[in-house]
């Protein structure tokens, strides 16, 4: 069926997609989703045209001048394709290329939830989405979203599984039967009766898939379902997609991480700026040459590509050609105070040593984290990897010294013993959801907040940012803040409200704040989840620069194998609250790390 699929998708004239069906078993393949010259652009529907003259002043309101929400992706233009029933279709491309919009047009969120101007027709299971409404489309299309935390309507698994069927008004006994059958199918019977908020991201995503599956919609739409998942959970997700495929359902997946779908995809569509630029079969995607993949801005399409060295030049590695070998050497050396004469960075070389880290939750005896000793190379980037729920976030809390339950000492390379309170002033955590740690009204204030002896800039001078050194001299912290902002390409945004920035810009503001308050150890929690290849590489470059040029030690908690391999020097593997492995990322180490991060998905 995969070959048929391509024919159907590639045609722009909606030719009969059954023409090239090689199996012949099913001579009339039903079309599940059909786009006919579809365009969609976000924004308020221009309704005031009808009442022009009534409120002329309303039109003068500078609605367009407001900063565009970075979350709403760009629209799409003149899309025409057809997806036959039972196909697994991958939508890929850079952020903002319009693939999320395509998923929304299929499940009806556009135009029924997101306002915008729509042209053309989308037909889903024979239904014109514009003539129907969300509730009318719900029995035909099931949707799984990126963030497992915010797609549950109830707090218990059984209630969640039953939710859609309850809304459809099914008989309670029939719902109970279906819930039991689906729980069996997804092997989540053990989770029924558990608190959803206490489950790991992987379990939550599984429940989300199951809860969509219960009502048996023939079309499944997934929007970046793997963004927050570890290798094991991604393997489970792969099984689920396989299950749906075997059941003859149409599965449409918008994704940045591609390797886990290798072998399942019938057709891959690549988008750019709201247009379909390339359609391939699953086999073509598998064999896509690296150069073409780079031009298309795609992440590795099979797990084998991830370990291939030097696909992307490491920033900073040019000045330190033997750096990786060095790490290996020093890591095997017990002398922590050892100095190398190979370069500037190595003078500061040494280790941050962890002593007796443990973390015990309230009302429990056994610690969830227990690390008698471990070492983090100073001035390097260390990846902390491990399955969801292994204690990676708890490890970060301990390192940061966030609360009283975090026990243990961190010994700095120069021998200082840092208690929990000291670590609060030594470490800085850049959260995955950066919005939580930006408080002030402007980017400049955000940086000044961290500077010692600096009060936030008065609002009167906040409007104009003098870049001359003279002004900076009259208020030294301000000069330093501006320098930091310039280094991070944030100078032009100094006056913007931090929350009006895009995700990547917010992350840079947080880094600027960390640099401003001279924290020596920076912790990143999942800095690349849900990022496309280009943005992921940007984050990698930035994090490398922190270690290579700013002499910071960086600890990165990540599930992202591609990122870990290009950005990190050292890896710590955490399992069930213990460090089970610690190695330098030389060529052997890279393979080892890739194995950890892509296990079960080969």
């Amino acid at each position, binding site marked *: 069926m995969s070959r048929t699929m391509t024919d159907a998708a590639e045609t722009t004239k909606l030719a009969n997609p059954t023409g090239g069906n090689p199996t012949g078993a099913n001579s009339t393949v039903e079309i599940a989703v059909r786009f006919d010259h579809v365009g969609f652009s976000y924004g308020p529907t221009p309704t005031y045209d009808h009442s022009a003259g009534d409120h002329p002043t309303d039109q003068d309101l500078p609605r367009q001048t407001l900063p565009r929400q970075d979350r709403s992706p760009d629209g799409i233009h003149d899309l025409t394709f057809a997806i036959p029933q039972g196909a697994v279709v991958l939508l890929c491309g850079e952020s903002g290329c319009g693939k999320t919009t395509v998923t929304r047009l299929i499940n009806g969120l556009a135009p029924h939830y997101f306002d915008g101007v729509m042209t053309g027709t989308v037909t889903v299971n024979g239904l014109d989405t514009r003539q129907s409404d969300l509730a009318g489309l719900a029995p035909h299309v099931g949707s799984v979203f990126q963030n497992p935390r*915010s797609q549950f309507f109830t*707090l218990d698994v059984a209630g969640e599984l039953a939710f859609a069927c309850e*809304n459809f008004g099914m008989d309670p006994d029939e719902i109970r039967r279906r819930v039991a059958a689906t729980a069996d199918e997804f092997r989540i019977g053990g989770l029924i009766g558990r608190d959803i908020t206490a489950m790991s991201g992987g379990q939550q995503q599984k429940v989300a898939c199951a809860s969509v599956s219960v009502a048996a919609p023939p079309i499944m739409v997934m929007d970046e379902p793997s963004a927050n998942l570890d290798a094991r959970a991604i393997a489970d997700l792969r099984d689920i997609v396989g299950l749906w495929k075997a059941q003859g359902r149409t599965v449409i997946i918008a994704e940045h991480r591609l390797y886990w779908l290798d072998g399942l995809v019938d057709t891959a569509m690549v988008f750019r700026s709201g247009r379909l630029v390339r359609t391939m079969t699953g086999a073509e995607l598998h064999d896509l040459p690296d150069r073409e993949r780079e031009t298309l801005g795609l992440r590795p399409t099979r797990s084998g590509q991830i370990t291939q060295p030097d696909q992307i030049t490491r920033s900073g590695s040019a000045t330190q050609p033997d750096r990786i070998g060095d790490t290996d050497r020093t890591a095997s050396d017990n002398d922590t105070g050892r100095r190398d004469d190979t370069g500037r960075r190595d003078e500061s070389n040494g280790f941050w040593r962890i002593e007796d880290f443990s973390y015990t939750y309230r009302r429990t005896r056994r610690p969830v984290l227990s690390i008698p000793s471990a070492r983090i190379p100073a001035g390097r980037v260390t990846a902390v990897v491990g399955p969801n729920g292994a204690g990676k976030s708890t490890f970060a809390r301990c390192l940061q010294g966030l609360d009283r339950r975090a026990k243990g000492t961190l010994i700095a390379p120069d021998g200082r013993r840092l208690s929990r309170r000291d670590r609060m002033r030594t470490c800085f955590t850049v959260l995955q959801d950066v919005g939580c740690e930006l408080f002030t009204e402007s980017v400049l204030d955000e940086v000044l907040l961290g500077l010692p002896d600096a009060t936030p800039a008065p609002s009167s001078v906040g409007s104009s940012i003098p870049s001359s050194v003279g002004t900076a001299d009259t208020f030294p912290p301000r000069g330093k803040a501006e320098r930091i902002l310039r280094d991070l390409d944030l100078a032009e945004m100094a006056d913007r409200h931090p929350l009006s920035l895009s995700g990547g810009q917010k992350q840079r503001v947080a880094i600027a704040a960390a640099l401003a308050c001279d924290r020596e150890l920076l912790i990143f929690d999942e800095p690349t989840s849900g990022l496309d290849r280009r943005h992921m590489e940007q984050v990698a470059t930035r994090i490398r620069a922190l270690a290579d040029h700013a002499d910071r030690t960086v600890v990165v908690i990540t599930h992202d194998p591609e990122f870990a391999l290009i950005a990190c020097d050292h890896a710590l593997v955490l399992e069930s609250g213990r460090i089970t492995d610690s190695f330098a990322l030389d060529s052997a180490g890279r393979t080892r790390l890739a194995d950890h991060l892509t296990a079960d998905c080969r």
Partner: protein
Amino acid sequence: MFRSTAAHDRFRVDPRTKIALTITVGCFCLARAGGALPAVDVVRLGLACLPVILLPLSRRWAATLVYMLLLAVSLAAAAWLLPTIVSALSSEPAANGVMPQTAGAMPQPDGVMPHAFGSAIVWLAYATIAMTTQMLPVAMISYWMLVTTTASELVTALTRMHMPQAVTIPLAVMFRFFPTAFAEQRRIGDAMRMRGVRLGGTRMLAMFEYRVVPLIGSSVRIADELAQAAMTRGLGGPAKRTSIARIGFHAIDAVLLTLCMACFVVWIGAATGWLSDRTL
């Protein structure tokens, strides 16, 4: 907050009965229906003791113990401590109220107490004890209701009581949203401590803003995503919503509802004087 998993206990009370019980306890203990009528005082005492029976049946041992202790202490204080304080601080005989919240037993500040200092202490003691005895039973019975009911059970019960979806859906969203908002609040607090932003006297307003602005931002985003997920699964559709929550009236509901009714009968009886002739 609402327990997240369905009850598998054998002791199961219909949410509607729980609502009736909570209203009854609220009427008598908190709103003090029936005033100082002696018969109603007995009812009040009985209702105050009700959680002592209900909590262990739902296997909330710790809560039972804490409640029993607090109730005993406040009742004892009302019976002995208050009259002692009053008589010690004033030469006049203390008002002999068994339950301190009895309005008639409240001392008049300038009538009973000669010293401003003593009067303040008595007022404080009265206020504390009255609050405990008046609010604790309601707090406890509400706690019992919340921890033994799932959100979907409550929504189903309200639907059966012919509450419109305009009431039940926002209610369900609210209870879904609270834990999330608390979690966000904790994360923002952590981030503030991590960045070394502390509560300062002159910058209270700024601190408030630092806390609230990110919270609103993330709450709006979560609510938005939640709404999308719910609507793509048919919430708000034309079909009459069904539910797998098993609710229904059983023997225990009959007992508890009779009890509620009895309380009101006693009140009416006492208020009309029909009962007071027989009990006194």
